[in-house]
């Protein structure tokens, strides 16, 4: 019932505002203060968030609410191979996306609602925006919700709101982004965010794991729309804003905005998604029928800087110089290749006849794609 009312309201508002679009594209001034995206395309929503952040006048608060189709979102300075189980990710057929703000990795699906509150630096207080969200869910009947000392919104000891990420322009403006778990697939989340790569040592930023639960476990009938309207009400009250929601969608509303279109494209490029990866090393040990090898990978910006092999054990010790020769060839050809994107052409031609070299190659390809 609530949901059908919501859709009617949506259509009316869209019809009314259709001609106004998101902004006056010539001047690129963000006119409104409360935006809700109708799109569930994560590439669009992340680029919209960034665009609003950059173009809203510095002194005005802004609220954006949206939800995304299933995807994994990693922090700007994280290592996707460390954060994400790529094999599982391919299995469920969803993308990972590197966002422009810092922080850790989260899983998005239609069961969680994202909010970002943009404020001038001078009035920026994490606790303040956490309280807006807290009051919103309390108003929906979750009276025992609380904010812990790290400003996470919790019910009991479980977080219902993922860690908050912020992005700022020093001294001017910052945004506070959070994800409210309403009915998210927590099982999928656990599987996708467990990469099991203990021997991968990475620079950059690690994620912090926290016990989480869904709002629906506490209140079974709560919906994304309920959450949206509750946060909007609290935001209006708290910042004394009279205007109503500006609904936006991909396409008609934003297609004239070059920066959003470019931002969406950039998120899909290798340079951004993989090439932005901080330096890391990865040590592996493989046992084959012919022996055991230790592999030492060193990568930066998604490129293999070096890959060296140590022979730990060899069944036929007499063949050691030939094996070493093969490994040297392989070491030379792997340096400079893209991590995780090994093409057969990078496999030295001299080794194509060797079954043991083939086994090693296949293992390396598999490991780097995992």
């Amino acid at each position: 019932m609530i949901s059908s009312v919501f859709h009617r309201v949506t259509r009316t508002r869209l019809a009314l505002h259709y001609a106004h679009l998101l902004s006056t594209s010539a001047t690129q001034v963000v006119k409104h203060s409360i935006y809700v995206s109708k799109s569930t395309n994560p590439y669009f929503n992340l680029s919209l968030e960034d665009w609003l952040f950059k173009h809203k006048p510095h002194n005005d608060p802004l609220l954006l609410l949206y939800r995304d189709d299933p995807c994994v979102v990693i922090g700007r300075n994280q290592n996707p191979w460390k954060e994400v189980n790529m094999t599982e990710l391919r299995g469920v057929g969803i993308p990972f996306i590197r966002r422009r703000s810092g922080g850790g990795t989260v899983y998005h699906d239609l069961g969680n609602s994202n909010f970002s509150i943009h404020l001038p630096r001078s009035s920026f207080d994490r606790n303040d925006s956490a309280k807006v969200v807290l009051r919103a869910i309390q108003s929906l009947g979750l009276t025992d919700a609380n904010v812990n000392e790290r400003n996470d919104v919790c019910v009991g000891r479980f977080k219902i709101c993922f860690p908050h990420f912020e992005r700022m322009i020093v001294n001017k403006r910052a945004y506070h982004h959070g994800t409210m778990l309403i009915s998210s697939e927590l099982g999928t989340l656990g599987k996708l965010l467990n990469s099991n790569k203990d021997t991968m040592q990475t620079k950059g930023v690690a994620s912090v794991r926290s016990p989480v639960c869904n709002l629906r476990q506490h209140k079974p009938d709560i919906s994304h729309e309920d959450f949206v309207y509750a946060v909007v009400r609290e935001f209006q009250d708290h910042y004394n804003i009279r205007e109503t929601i500006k609904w936006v969608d991909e396409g008609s509303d934003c297609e004239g905005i070059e920066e959003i279109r470019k931002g969406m494209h950039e998120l899909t490029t290798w340079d951004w998604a993989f090439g932005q990866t901080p330096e890391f090393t990865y040590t592996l040990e493989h046992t084959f029928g012919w022996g055991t090898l230790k592999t030492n990978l060193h990568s930066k910006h998604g490129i293999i800087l070096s890959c060296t092999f140590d022979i730990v054990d060899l069944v036929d010790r007499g063949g050691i110089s030939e094996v070493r020769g093969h490994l040297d060839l392989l070491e030379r050809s792997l340096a400079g290749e893209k991590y995780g994107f090994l093409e057969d052409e990078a496999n030295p031609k001299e080794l194509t006849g060797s079954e043991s070299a083939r086994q090693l190659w296949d293992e390396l390809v598999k490991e780097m794609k995992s």
Partner: protein
Amino acid sequence: MGPNMFAVRTLTTKKYTEDHEAVVFDDSTGIGVVSITDYAQSSLGDVVFVELPALETKVTKGDQIGAVESVKAASDIYAPISGTIQEINENLNDQPGLLNKSPEDEGWLCKIKVSDPTELDSLMDEAEYKAHCES
């Protein structure tokens, strides 16, 4: 004629941007050393990662050349002046905390071979920057 007649006179100039980058320009080498200001590091809090530009990149004043991620936030760094990236501070890869400890000295970000020193004229001097931070 004193012995100093042929000594090279060098002049270093320190200028600031509104986005809290600083550049120290040496007119004898044409090199500008870029850093974030002490004010910026204290607003950011503990820095956990510094993203630096690639060597030999040609940059125009105002281009994004990197980013700083702290425990609180990620913040972009913009080129205070146009030129070519000649050196980056590799120590920041292992010690991002240098930005907190010594932002305008040991925590320098990169050196730019400046293409047009007159651009410095449009940046703030120390007194103007101080006023900017207090505004």
